Each structure stands twice: as C-alpha cells, then as structure tokens.
C-alpha cells in the first residue's frame, strides 16, 4: 500500500513543492535582498524592505484592508443571515433556491465585477436611470469610491456566508424553537437567544470564508476603487509591476500571508471538521 500511495502522491507533491513551496521560498529570499537600479534583485542582504513595512503609511494600508474585510464580513452576515433563515425553512424548493443563490457566483468573477462598473459608472445604468426618472440632474460619482469596492466585495462573497449559515441552520433542532415558544418567548427573542447561538459554528465558518479572501482582494479594489482605494493586494501588485520593487513587494506579500495564517490558526484551533 505504501508504494502505491507514494506513487499516487507523487504528481501532487511535485506540483506543491515546485509551484507552491519553491515560489514562496523565492519571495522569502527576495524580501531580504536589495532592489536593483531599475528593478530586479541583487545583493547585499538587507532588512530594509521589512523595516519599510513598519512605516505608518503601509500599516495604514494594512489597517484599511482589515477594516474593509471586516466591514464586508459584517455586511455579509447582516444580509446573509435572514436569507439563510429563509432557505432553511423553504421546504421542498430548497435546492432550487440554493442554486439561485450560487448561480451568479459560479459565473465569472471578473464579469461580475465588471457588471458593477457597468452599473456604477457616470454613464452607467444606475445614473442614467436616476436621471431618466428625473431624480437627479448631474450623475452621481459612484464608481472609484470605497463604497463601490464595499458593494463589489459583498456581492462577490455573499454566497460564501450564506452557505455555511444555511448548513448550520438546517441542522438545527426545531423542537428547541417550539420549546422556547411554549415558554412564552416572542419570535424575536427566540431568534436572538436560541437560533443565533446555535448557528454560531456557521457564523464562524462564514466569517472566515469571507474575511480571509477579502484580505487578499485585488481585482475588486482595482476595477471599482480606481487608484484611490489601495488595499494590500493593490500595493503588492504595484510593487511587482509598475514600481519594480520586488524586495518590498515580497515583504508585503509575506506580511499579508502571515496575517492570514495567524487568523486561520486561531480559527482551526476551534473547529473540528477539517476541509481536507
């Protein structure tokens, strides 16, 4: 068995070593090298890139990224919980409704982000509709704002919150709600004191599934935020392309990974069911 298993594991191990581990090792080494005159990396070794990260400017970007991710998570939770509740009580149409939630998500992420550009532009659908309805004269500048990025991220990640919530709520024992009602609780009370606590594993899972990807978001702030809403992903992309400062970009990438891994470690410790 061991030999077969080793052979079976070989292709994936190769891919993981060569294309996941080695690249991360390379950027780790780049993060302690110096930027060449016009780009590239060269000796001497230097911690300058890491020290530069401690500048309040870049800590500010990290803080903004965390804040945006937290806002997206909170909004997804607020919007997604009632929907998950509805789904869990939907009876025989459950699968259909579930598919309807997932359907936009299964299509192209790029296209869905572009759809928001199409809506929010000055000449976009929302503005032309409002002008046509006579509600405004000049177009509102909706695109290239933090709000646009927030909307785009919530739109992109809502299904990730709804599914775990739905899974947790569906497993919930209905008799507990009946018991609460028998004891005289109002619907809102039983919601707050019975349903939500029982759904908390789903809430935690959904929060992680939304928060972590949002930390690394790049495409949404790039297309919807213009160069005004700079998140960690935009900074990293910029350093590896236009700015050609690979050491600094590498340090920023690893810092972002570190934040993500720390958060995950905290979560994994509390959860029982692994994904793999």
């Amino acid at each position, binding site marked *: 068995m061991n030999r077969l298993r080793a052979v079976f594991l070989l292709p994936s191990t190769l891919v993981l070593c060569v294309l996941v581990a080695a690249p991360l090792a390379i950027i780790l080494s780049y993060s302690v090298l110096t*930027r060449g*005159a*016009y*780009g*590239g990396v060269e000796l001497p070794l230097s911690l300058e890139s890491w020290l530069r990260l401690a500048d309040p*400017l*870049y800590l*500010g*970007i990290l803080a903004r990224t965390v804040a945006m991710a937290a806002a997206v998570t909170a909004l997804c939770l607020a919007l997604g919980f009632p929907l998950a509740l509805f789904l869990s009580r939907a009876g025989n149409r459950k699968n259909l409704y579930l598919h309807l939630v997932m359907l936009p998500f299964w299509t192209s992420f790029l296209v869905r982000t572009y759809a928001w550009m199409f809506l929010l532009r*000055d*000449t976009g659908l929302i503005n032309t509709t409002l002008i046509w309805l006579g509600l405004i004269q000049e*177009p509102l*500048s909706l695109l*290239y704002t933090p709000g646009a990025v927030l909307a785009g991220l919530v739109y992109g990640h809502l299904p990730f919150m709804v599914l775990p919530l739905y899974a947790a709520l569906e497993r919930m024992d209905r008799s507990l709600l009946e018991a609460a009602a028998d004891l005289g609780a109002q619907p809102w009370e039983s919601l707050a004191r019975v349903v939500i606590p029982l759904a908390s594993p789903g809430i935690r899972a959904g929060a992680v599934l939304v928060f972590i990807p949002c930390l690394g978001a790049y495409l949404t702030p790039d297309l919807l935020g*213009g*160069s*005004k809403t*700079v998140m960690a992903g935009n*900074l990293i992309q*910029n*350093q*590896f*392309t*236009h*700015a*050609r*400062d690979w050491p*600094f970009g590498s340090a920023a990438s690893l810092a972002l990974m570190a934040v993500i891994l720390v958060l995950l470690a905290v979560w994994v410790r509390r959860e029982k069911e692994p994904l793999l």
Partner: protein
Amino acid sequence: MNRRTFLMSAAGAAGCRRNEARLNVFNWSGYISPRVVPRFEEETGIQVRYAVYESNEEMLARVISGNSGWDIVFPSHYCLQPMLRQGLLAPLRHGWLPNLANLEREFQSPPWDQELRWTMPYLWGGTGILYNARLAPAPDFWASMWEARMERRITMLNDPAEVLGAALLKLGLSANSSDAGELRRAQKEALAQKRLLRGYLNAEVLDQVVAGDVQAAQAWSSSAQQAMDESGDLRFAYPREGFPLYADGAVVLRESRRAEAAHRFLDYLLRPEVAVLNHRTARSASCIRLPAELRANAVLYPPADVLARGEWWKTPPVSVQRLRDRLWTEILSG
C-alpha cells in the same frame, strides 16, 4: 481518448502556432493606424503580433527581465539610458533603414541619442491640460489643477514623473529637478491634490472627458487631440508655468532574434504615406516629416513662443529614480 493522448495533442496544437514568421511589437495604445499592420503583413508575409500598453512602467515591467518575447517596444526618450544600462537594447542597423532620411531634421540627431544608434524617433508631444470649454476661467496653469472647484472632476496621469513634474512646475521649479528636498515638496503637493482627484488615469480617461464627466485631465497632446476630434467642447492648454516634452521612439530589444524583420517593420513606419496614416489615428506630432498642412495644428505643433516654455524630460540619476519611485508608491498608498 485517454489523458496522455489528449495532453500530447494539446501540446502539439500550442506548438504549431509558433512556426510562422513572427514579429512581436509592443506599442502605446492608439499609436498606429489599424490599417498599417495588415498592410505590412500582406506586403512582407511577416505575421505581426501587436499589443498595447498605457505607460512606460507597464512596458518596462514586462521587458526588464530580458526575456519577455517582444521584439520592438516604444519607450519614451528618457527611458533610453536606463534600458541601455540594463543591456536591453540592440543597436540599430542603419543599412536596413533607408527611410531614416524621412525623419524631421531635429530628430535626425536628438540629444538623447545623437547618432540614432539605439532608437528610431516615432512620435513626440507635450503634457498639458485637456479641459472642457465650459470651465471658466480656463485652467491654463498647473496650479488650476489644485483648485477646490475642481473636486472629483479632474484626473492626473498615472505616471510618477508627470505627477511630480506638474507639482514641481506649480512650485516654480523644474520638472527635471534632481533635488531630494524639492521632490519631497512636490510629493506633499501631490498628496494634497489627491483628494480632489477622481483617479490617476492615462488614455483610459478620454472616454470620460468626451462624455463630460471629467472636466479637466492632465493629458498628453496626442490623447488630447484624439479626444478633441470626438467632441467639439474640449480644449487643450500648455500650462503657463511650463510643461514637459517627450519623444517616443522605437527600439529593437537585444533579446530579439528577428532583427531583420524588426528593421523592416521600422523602415515601413518611416515611409511618408504610412506616417500620414498613423498620424490620422495617433493624432500626435510625428518625428517623421509630415506634409505642411498636417503640421499646421497648434495643439500638436505648438508655436515657438509656447514651445519655449517646454522642457524635454531628462534621464534622472539612479538615486533620483529610486526616490521618485518610492515617493510615487507613497502617493498611491496615502
């Protein structure tokens, strides 16, 4: 069909396409007539892959590795020295470029490449302010782009040299300043301006200017003329404090193994009738001599008194370049 067969045929299909005679050209967007490449392909049988970029940085990011796959790129004149120092360029063989004589006299031996060893000057222009005629008073100072009345209706170029340059000129300094103190003052100005801006955009902004959503944009003269062709409400101003001048020229990359095909393409671009065709699309002042009536455009070929206010970009020393890049990252992150 099992997996192995499938993989083999996929690899085969990928390889097939590489056997044609190919030339890979990377140029600024909107810098060539859509008819030029098909005509060249028909005449010479050389298939051209033509892709576009919006900024020198975008091009350099791809090319600096030395194995990008491009044969010809079009850097601005001040990028020439850095590219040369990185060993990225192949010398031009004048024997393969008989049409070089078609260049305008001042571009036959420009200060940045006096013997035209490395570059073939292509199009030139200046940076100014493209604005909507309804704006009163007209923004013909760089300082106008810092006024509160412009809030959210203006953009600047997505180019560190241009943004810092405009700020330096606003402060009464030279856009080519190498002084760290002056550059930091310029950065402060740029950061103060940031909240007024809609964004840092190059040619992407033209649509919004034509539509009237953006009232004033820092723009290159060729982009401005393209926009003005689409809308009669637009004007272009070369700011009174001074403005930068640039010349974009073609270079053959040292990594290219298709030198002869590359030179044939460049020689084709140097033909007078092709230059006129390109002018109709790019709407830029050309380094190749155009008929007098096309040179009568005051936006593209500013009169002597306006031109006197312009200064050609200079290649900054390495330390200044590094400082500029760092200041730009800070501006974008602020």
